[in-house]
């Protein structure tokens, strides 16, 4: 299962792209290929926060429903949502098809210190343990 080197990861299986300095960065968030595969085909994605609203690191900010189950979506960072991917809302299967690309979920302008995130190596270890 692919775990791109340049991304950072949460223990709840979200990825974060574009995190450099922390506060002020606009980062992109999605779920990992490992998570998408474990869920099965995603049929419904809902965010309970809109653009301009604040999300908290480690707090649920939406729900992901697959053919087999429903899971909470967590924000891996705190900050303000600046964009939500309309393609992921309308055709959530894009998350399965391209979890690190077209299947991105939302963008956040990071406020404060980002939470404890994992690098690719640590995330790979995490998924190996749970496999």
């Amino acid at each position, binding site marked *: 299962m692919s775990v791109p080197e340049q991304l950072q990861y949460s223990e709840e299986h979200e990825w974060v792209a574009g995190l450099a300095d922390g506060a002020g960065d606009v980062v992109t968030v999605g779920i990992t290929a490992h998570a998408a595969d474990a869920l099965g085909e995603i049929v419904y994605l809902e965010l309970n926060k809109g653009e301009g609203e604040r999300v908290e690191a480690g707090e649920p900010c939406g729900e992901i*429903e697959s053919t*087999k189950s429903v899971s909470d979506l967590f924000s891996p960072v705190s900050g303000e949502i600046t964009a939500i991917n309309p393609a992921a809302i309308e055709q959530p299967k894009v998350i399965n098809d391209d979890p690190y690309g077209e299947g991105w979920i939302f963008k956040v302008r990071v406020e404060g210190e980002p939470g404890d995130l994992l690098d690719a190596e640590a995330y790979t270890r995490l998924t190996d343990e749970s496999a």
Partner: protein
Amino acid sequence: MSASKKTPLHDVHVELDATLVDFAGYAMPLRYAGETVEHRAVRTSAGLFDLSHMGEIFLSGPQAGAALDHALVGEISALAVGRARYTMICNPAGGVLDDLIVYRLADETFMVVANAANAATVLAELLDRAAGFDTVVTDRSAEYALIALQGPRAQEILAGFTDAPLADLRYYAIMDGVVAGADALLARTGYTGEDGFELFVSAGDAVPLWRALAGVEGVTPAGLSARDTLRLEAGMPLYGNELTTETTPYEAGLGRVVKLGKPGDFVGKEALTALSRTPPGRTLVGLVARGRRAPRQGYAVVTSDGTPCGAVTSGAPSPTLGTPIAMAYLDAGHSGELAVDVRGRQEPVDVVALPFYKRS
């Protein structure tokens, strides 16, 4: 996963990069390429399933039929040779221990096919209940692999591998034959709502038979996930969801399988007779969600004022209908607007007649 038993087709599943899950103690393929593709393949062409985890229990001898009449709720002795019947084994209180298909292979030989999770219970009960009869009960589950080919093209595809007269084999019938060089029992049964066949072969013949069938264009390997949505669309109960020891055949809308009038006594007769005389306090219904959220097993069904009036037993987005569907037990006396509590939100649903899908 390492503790799970492997079916004779395990290496094939690994080779196909299936997502494997433990199901009833077996490592089983949940999906291969994707459950929706697999589901659609069964509805439009053909899907190939490994069902080798299911139990095959044989009863033979002069009183095999009488023993099954006593042990099960159906009148099995009345079955013609070469025919099959959907039936149940109940406890003395009328609760369902398992739902079964029984095939009459010869005048004095019957094959009982049990759900994997219940196979040990069914075997123990059959041994116990058949004790006074002139019959031998044998568990042959480990000897058999079971491969199902299901879908509108199943007959045409299978015909390429056997001289058996498939066109003459009726629904819920079984015959001997040779398929792709392997001795097989060919049954026209299934759990998908489509035409199709279930092939019982020696465990050692499973891999070559699978490879032969899977090599045909239009045949898609399909896992448990697709099997579950297929049977749900077809309105077929799943043991552990719609059927448990706490449910009766009448609640499940399957009172027709209970033959109270058959000769002799059978386990559960007294309780089932009493249950048959009063309308059940709850019944199994079909639900179609108006929104996009799927009711799931265990979610509450509620009335418009939020009062709980039932529980969902199975639910999923229906690939064929394009909307979420579910089966639920609904308490008697409820009508009008209903909703399902989906994680704290009331999602409106409509009660519909089962099945959701019927093949044309």
